[in-house]
């Protein structure tokens, strides 16, 4: 668990800007972060936008879904999948991406950075 006290919440954009059952990229101080929204589970996730495989800023353009109970995203380039909870690669490789907390207040979406 991340210690909530140290998280800096950054307002990124209104709800309506995000994709239902998909991802969108935001940029915060030059860093690209991908934000995903699952309508059926009503869950939000955020990760690095960069896919560690070939270092492409691409994950927000990938398809989201589930592997068992684990929510995931598949990179559009070579379909490596990553858990949106742990950031671990689910395609059997030792890649890992950073994940970030997301919260929705009113109709605004916030990303938590350390």
């Amino acid at each position, binding site marked *: 668990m991340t210690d909530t006290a140290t998280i800096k919440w950054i307002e990124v954009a209104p709800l309506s800007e995000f994709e239902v*059952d998909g991802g969108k*990229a935001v940029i915060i101080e030059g860093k690209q972060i991908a934000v995903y929204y699952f309508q059926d589970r009503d869950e939000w996730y955020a990760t690095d936008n960069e896919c560690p495989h070939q270092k492409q*800023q691409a994950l927000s353009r990938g398809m989201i879904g589930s592997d068992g109970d684990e929510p995931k995203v598949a990179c*559009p380039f070579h379909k490596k999948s990553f858990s949106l909870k742990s950031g671990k690669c689910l395609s059997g490789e030792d890649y890992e991406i950073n994940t970030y907390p997301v919260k929705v207040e009113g109709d605004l979406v916030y990303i938590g950075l350390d």
Partner: protein
Amino acid sequence: MSTKKKLIVVGNGMTGYKFCEKFIEKGLSKIYDITVFGEEPWAAYDRVHLTDYYTGTSVRDLKMAPREWYEENGIELRTSYKITSVDRDKKIAYNQHGDEFTYDTLVLSTGSDAFVPPIPGVDKKGVFVYRRIEDLDAIKEYVTNAKSAAVIGGGLLGLEAAKAVMDDGLKTSVVEFAPRLMPRQLDDDGSNMLKSELEKLDLDILLSKNTKSINGNGKVTAMEFADGSILETDMVVVSAGIRPRDELARECGLTVGERGGILVDETMRTSDPSIFAIGECALALGSIWGLVAPCYDMADVCANNLLGEEAKFEGADLSTKLKLIGIEVASFGDAFGVTEGAKPIVFHNIPNGIYKKIFISEDGKHLLGGILVGDAEDYNMLYQTYASKIKLPANPEGLIIKSDGGGFELSVLDLPDEAVICSCENVTKKSLIEAVDEFDFTQVGQLKKATKAGTGCGGCVPMLDDLLTAKLEASGKVVKKVICEHFDYTRQELFDLIKVEEIKTYPELLKKHGTGSGCEICKPLSASLLASIWNEHITKHSNIQDTNDKFLANIQKGGTYSVVPRIAGGEITPDKLIVIGQVAKKYDLYTKITGGQRIDLFGAKVEELPEIWKELIEAGFESGHAYGKSLRTVKSCVGSTWCRYGQQDSVSFALKVENRYKGLRSPHKLKGGVSGCIRECAEARGKDFGIIATDKGYNLLLCGNGGANPKHALLFATDLDEETCIKYLDRFLMFYIKTAAPLTRTAKWLDNLDGGIDYLKEVVIEDSLGICEQLDKDMEKLVDTYACEWKKVVEDPEMIKKFRPFVNSDATDDSIKFTPMREMKKPANW
């Protein structure tokens, strides 16, 4: 201070790695602290699949295990460390910097190097070996400035290397000293067959050639042979065998073989009982074993001996199967029939490039070995029949000649329990069956993960597949190709469900018939089904589309997209050509004439796509659907309007056909061609549908393609008028769309269709299924509802918004980098 003994492993190749795995598995870490030294900068990687690295797989993907694996298991791995000497009395190993490492037990797994014969000139620039990642990097760099290459060595590895450089576009020759290819595996007839098949692919094969010198001023320009002939070449790859790396063993006075290799006994001990040698560096039972399976075996034997258990290396079978440029070659057991009384059975099909020879025992009861060229589909079963000594039937020719009903059908389930299915990992049929029973596996992936079978050279994977299917069928479980974990249906079943229940969206489908949140397999598949059933705008389902369909453009290296406007039949006016030029110039796009008779503009940023398309659409262009599983192009030749041989106006007909089917969504992409006469300049026979003009009308040919597995289209009907031709095409396409599995091109679909082209004729021409009226209606509806999807986007500000790279900023994505190339640009390398 640890009280454990110290074990040092020198060499972190495939064998060294396998030893580590066994070390952990067998609990040796309770007795030893282990340190592994590897001279290469990477942790052990899969050398067997090195060619995959050449064709684009990353080092990371090739790794046997990530570094964390070593850490987690308490193995100290030191790469870029070369052990240069060993003081056996003091039991100290030294590295290149003179650092000292004490040991109680030393394991040498130093592998081998490529053997480079002492030919004058081998040290010239442009001469390479094919063994390590660095070698491949060096070759890859050099080929960009070379037009031709020669490979010395026509064995297994030489041919593999030749394929790699040939695929890079070089004119390639293979130079072999022996009078035949793969001399250790093939006989003369087998070699001849392989040679002529390889020559058909433009690979030059020179046999009985003794290279006298490699010539050139500083860098290679030619090879000269003992018979006086000369071969001009820009580079040379030497693959003339392996040389065990025994230099460290020699340095410290261990016994080595006369022709190299560290001498070991059956327990893998060298002449010093505290030092073991395993893998390709070891001379065991009088031989150097140059395949992974025996090397892995040695690692296992060594680990057992360290545990104090008696284990012996007993040698191994050198059976191999490989696929060279699409030509299968295999040899197993006594491939040359040297066993006393061995009787050969030969099947020789020269036009189809197939040669099979097997040897059976004198009493006709057992299979001794054999050679397969051109068709090695039955290799696994034949190998098992040989290895498990299965009793042969009265007509053993059925083993290699498959006449209807006459074949000898052996099921995997008939094999004895001890049959070794995966020889790399030594996994028996019994342990596979047990794994399936215990864990209720339904997918090969699960079985591989649990038993490691199929993770070495991968040759047994088809057999694992058969075993699993047979097992599931035998236990009464229906084996159906379900889509993924989220839907327990086949594509066909989902198609029917969507249609019958009038399901219009993916969430609705998932809720009614699926589980979880879907994935990258079922989402695009459902998108394609929804689109082909309801013919709605593709962006309506944008979040279940591949990124290409989502942004209506193909994503390319670096994350930019390409733009391909439709240029039906390849016909374009000067004004439209100018517009393409102007747009490309304005947005600084790389332009190229494609293989499909149109123009591709590369390097557009996602936010530029709507503006670019707006300009193109204003000039009268439409989407070319280069991003979708849909109709691409209908290629044409000039035909009777200009060409002196033309029989019909092929351009006009191509335009008509392309415009009729544009936008059509299908299981895979579709391509067509219309040629004005039998000279076939539009290459129509290489297309999903090809139309070739005759003096009376058109011949229609179906189900061909280029691509990875080229197939010529088959003649379907002759001398048709345009209307009938289109009627048949409508039905054929609709029938294909409704029944083909996802990502199945028409050729493969036809292959799987019982009755083949004749059955297709019955369905389409004679309406044997009574569905033609429906097919006609369905196609008419699709044609009537066509609309250019890009036009819809550029007219809708809400849709345009989707193309912004960031939702919280109007910034452009500055991680995208280009480098200049020939007055245009290309994406920076990844």
